[in-house]
């Protein structure tokens, strides 16, 4: 009974308050999202990653950095679910703790790059003129350099380490967000509802933040989610060449790099973290695709 009450409250065509209107919109989007199987698979994977990161000490069976040289390079068994690496560390536990690092990278990069790109792109698009030319010129300079090479150069300059890797990936990923935000802004810039708020005396800042950014966010969420896979892979790539997370941190890319030496005889050392990277990347891709279906403004203004 309470459930059906809740449902009809959320789906009410005539909400009675600001919060009811907002929750109703979120509920409608989640209903549409739930009917998409692949998106739900993606969501489950991402939620599993979050749970793994949050409860790592309870999920892991061993200490991720405790070495046991007597038990090195053991194949997967009941005691070591994914085997052990060259220093006898339990790979399953390292993969579990690695989820924390991966999640931190993804969240920090998204939190740094997406708002910066959004604001720069929307400002350039709305103001136009020389502001547009300067901001987009800078964006184009960053865009013209290959992502991984630029990240490499930055990390090399700043020094290896996970924080610098995050910073480097953020610096390389904002330009594409700025481009998208600018393109979106240009489509709304001359709309009557923007003209109407200009006529009410709204400042450019108010229009960009209050009117244009809310219209760009849904495509931005989609884009960022789809990019998460790439971010994870770039971070893993940096880890692989030794410029990302430093030992003994259990970063997945770095783990693959260590396992490369034994890939023919002790395949599990490199394969297990590889599986983790593939699974999580796929999860974010599915989630992003599903979000695009329900959020993309081009697929109609239904929500």
């Amino acid at each position, binding site marked *: 009974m309470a459930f059906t009450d809740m449902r009809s409250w959320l789906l009410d*065509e*005539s*909400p*009675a*308050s*600001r919060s*009811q*209107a907002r929750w109703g*919109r979120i509920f409608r989007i989640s209903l549409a999202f739930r009917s998409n199987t692949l998106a739900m698979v993606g969501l489950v994977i991402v939620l599993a990653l979050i749970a793994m990161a949050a409860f790592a000490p309870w999920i892991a069976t061993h200490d991720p950095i405790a070495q046991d040289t007597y038990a090195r390079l053991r194949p997967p068994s009941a005691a070591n679910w994914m085997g052990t690496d060259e220093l006898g560390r339990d790979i399953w536990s390292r993969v579990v703790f690695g989820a924390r690092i991966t999640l931190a990278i993804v969240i920090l990069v998204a939190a740094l790059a997406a708002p910066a790109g959004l604001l720069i792109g929307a400002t350039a698009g709305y103001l136009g003129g020389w502001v547009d030319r300067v901001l987009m010129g800078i964006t184009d300079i960053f865009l013209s350099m290959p992502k991984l090479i630029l990240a490499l150069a930055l990390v090399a300059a700043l020094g290896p380490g996970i924080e610098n890797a995050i910073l480097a990936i953020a610096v390389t990923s904002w330009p594409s967000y700025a481009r998208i935000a600018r393109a979106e802004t240009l489509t709304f810039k001359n*709309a*009557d*509802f923007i*003209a*109407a*708020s*200009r*006529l*009410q*005396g*709204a400042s450019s800042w*108010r229009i960009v933040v*209050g*009117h244009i950014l*809310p*219209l760009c966010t849904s495509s931005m969420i989609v884009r960022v989610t789809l990019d998460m896979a790439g971010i994870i892979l770039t971070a893993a790539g940096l880890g692989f060449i030794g410029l990302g997370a430093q030992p003994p941190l259990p970063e997945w890319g770095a783990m693959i790099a260590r396992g490369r030496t034994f890939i023919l005889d002790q395949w599990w050392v490199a394969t297990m973290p590889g599986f983790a990277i593939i699974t999580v990347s796929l999860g974010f891709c599915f989630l992003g695709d599903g979000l695009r279906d329900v959020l993309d*403004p081009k697929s109609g*203004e*239904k929500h």
Partner: protein
Amino acid sequence: MTAIHIDNLDVSYGETQITHGVSIDVEEGGSFALVGESGSGKSTVLKAIAGLAPEWRGTIEIFGRPRSHGIDPDFARTCQMVFQDPYGSLHPRKTVDATLMEPLNIQGLSDHNERIAAILKDVGLDNRFRFRYPHQLSGGQRQRVAIARALIVEPKVLLLDEPTSALDVSVQAEILNLLKRLRRERGLTYLMVTHNLPIVSFLCDRLAVMRGGRIVETAGAENLKQGHLQNEYSRELLALSAPPAV
């Protein structure tokens, strides 16, 4: 008192000059129509007054005060605009409530709840529409919201850019009646752009016929009703809009 005084107005978009020496005067409380075919520059005059077409020469005065070329919050209190397409003039992600809240916040007016409730009642929208999104409203309801948004800052002058041409005929009548009542109750001055002459005779007391960016004739609405227009082009326009003889 003259509410809108325009003298010798030339508006350009970049290199292209749209209007040539447009001069009109609208009395306070009056309702003036600019009619003409598409591309005659009638909407451009409205945009120049509003500040959306900043490249112009000549004189625009609102209640005797010269108009600047840009948009300033003070001017917003005097003059507001209703757009042609109610589907494009409301922010798709904002509820009616949020749309009406915006001008109050910009102008720093208090009593948000009371003002919004009052204006919704005034434009004939039930309170249950208050927290709906534009996609949950019909075209006529959207246009009522747009009118409410324009009127919530209590302007004296309303610029109407073909406010009913995007609506069904039956809804058109409702909106026109609403505009007529609001003008009477609030003592508003209307400057309306339209190509529909019956609307002019219903809502306006004077009109100017525009062609190719120039005013070819200015006349009272009674001349229009009696078919006493002087200019040949105006008569042609009138003949085109007359119902076909059966």
